[in-house]
């Protein structure tokens, strides 16, 4: 009897740990948004983005992640895995706009910088206009001076 219980406990614990790490795997904690594939020579320090912090603030994956077809976001959330194809914003938002990720998907009008700024600043401004605590809206808060100096 006792053996079965221990086995059950270990099993459940194992499952919890597994899903927990899988979750972590699926949703990176903090990201330093420093995409060398597009920003080859930088003007500013890379922005730090607390991915998990935003998610735990109740923002849904598809508010930020998308795959547009006919103006509708058709992204399947199970596709959101680290390293999966077409997840990074730069898979579609390139240096120059107009890229089409797949023939049946919409082309984008924004380059990577515009896409990031629109998403991050757009939401922060909207939230702050609603009178709630929001993230930064001024350049220097997202691109602090110090990090650029230390970055070679």
């Amino acid at each position, binding site marked *: 009897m006792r053996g079965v219980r221990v086995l059950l406990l270990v099993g459940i614990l194992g499952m919890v740990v597994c899903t927990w790490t899988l979750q972590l795997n699926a949703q990176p904690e903090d990201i330093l948004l420093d995409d060398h594939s597009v920003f080859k020579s930088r*003007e*500013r320090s890379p922005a730090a983005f607390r991915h998990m912090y935003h998610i735990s603030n109740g923002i849904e994956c598809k508010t930020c992640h998308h795959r547009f077809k006919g103006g509708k976001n058709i992204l399947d959330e199970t596709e959101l895995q680290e390293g999966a194809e077409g997840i990074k914003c730069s898979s579609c938002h390139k240096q120059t706009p107009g890229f089409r990720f797949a023939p049946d998907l919409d082309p984008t009008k924004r380059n990577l910088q*515009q896409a990031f*700024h*629109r998403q991050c*600043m*757009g939401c922060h*401004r909207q939230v*702050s*206009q609603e*009178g709630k605590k929001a993230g930064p*809206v*001024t*350049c*220097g*808060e997202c691109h*602090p*001076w110090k990090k650029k100096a230390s970055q070679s």
Partner: protein
Amino acid sequence: MNLYELLRGPLLWLSFGVFLGGMVVRLALFVATSRKKDKPIYRFWSWKWLWLSIVHWIVPVNVTAKKNPIVTIVGFLFHICLLVTPLFLLAHGVLWYESWEISWWSLSEKVADYMTLVAIGCGLFFLVRRMVAPHVRVITTAADYVLLAVTLAPFVTGYLAYHQYFDYYTVMILHMIFGELMLVVIPFTKLSHFLMFFVSRAVTGMEFGRRDAPSW
């Protein structure tokens, strides 16, 4: 609405409105007055003298340039930095895109940063000149100093903000206040010469041209 949103929204609208509206009124008043008081200019209208005059004064090939080369050089540098820096500043461009989804070419931030310093340096030159050159000093009033300060304030605060000296957020708010103040002040002061320059140069050019005498 917090201070940032206030300055970024309604007050920005207000200052651009006053600036553009004010300049339209200034032009309209000028035309109305000249129609009443300077009828000959319309009778002797000459595109040739109009453009010759403007061109001669917008590129440094005139009497002032010969008499006062240093003032001319500093003046030109100052005006180039004054106009080009804010129009083609990357940070301003980001804000235009955020508000209107419009974008155009922008300077690299390093270049803009040096141009800001040049603008401030030239401004200081004019300040010192006002204080020490006797012939400038006699025609200087307090308003001239205030206007110079209003013009330089956005550059000084912009520079401090970019380098994140002092409390960044406060400096940023001050920069927006001074930038908007400068825009608002333009139509009501001699800063309006950015537009009225063309009008007065055109009129003077045609007036002298009528007598076949160049005004430059």
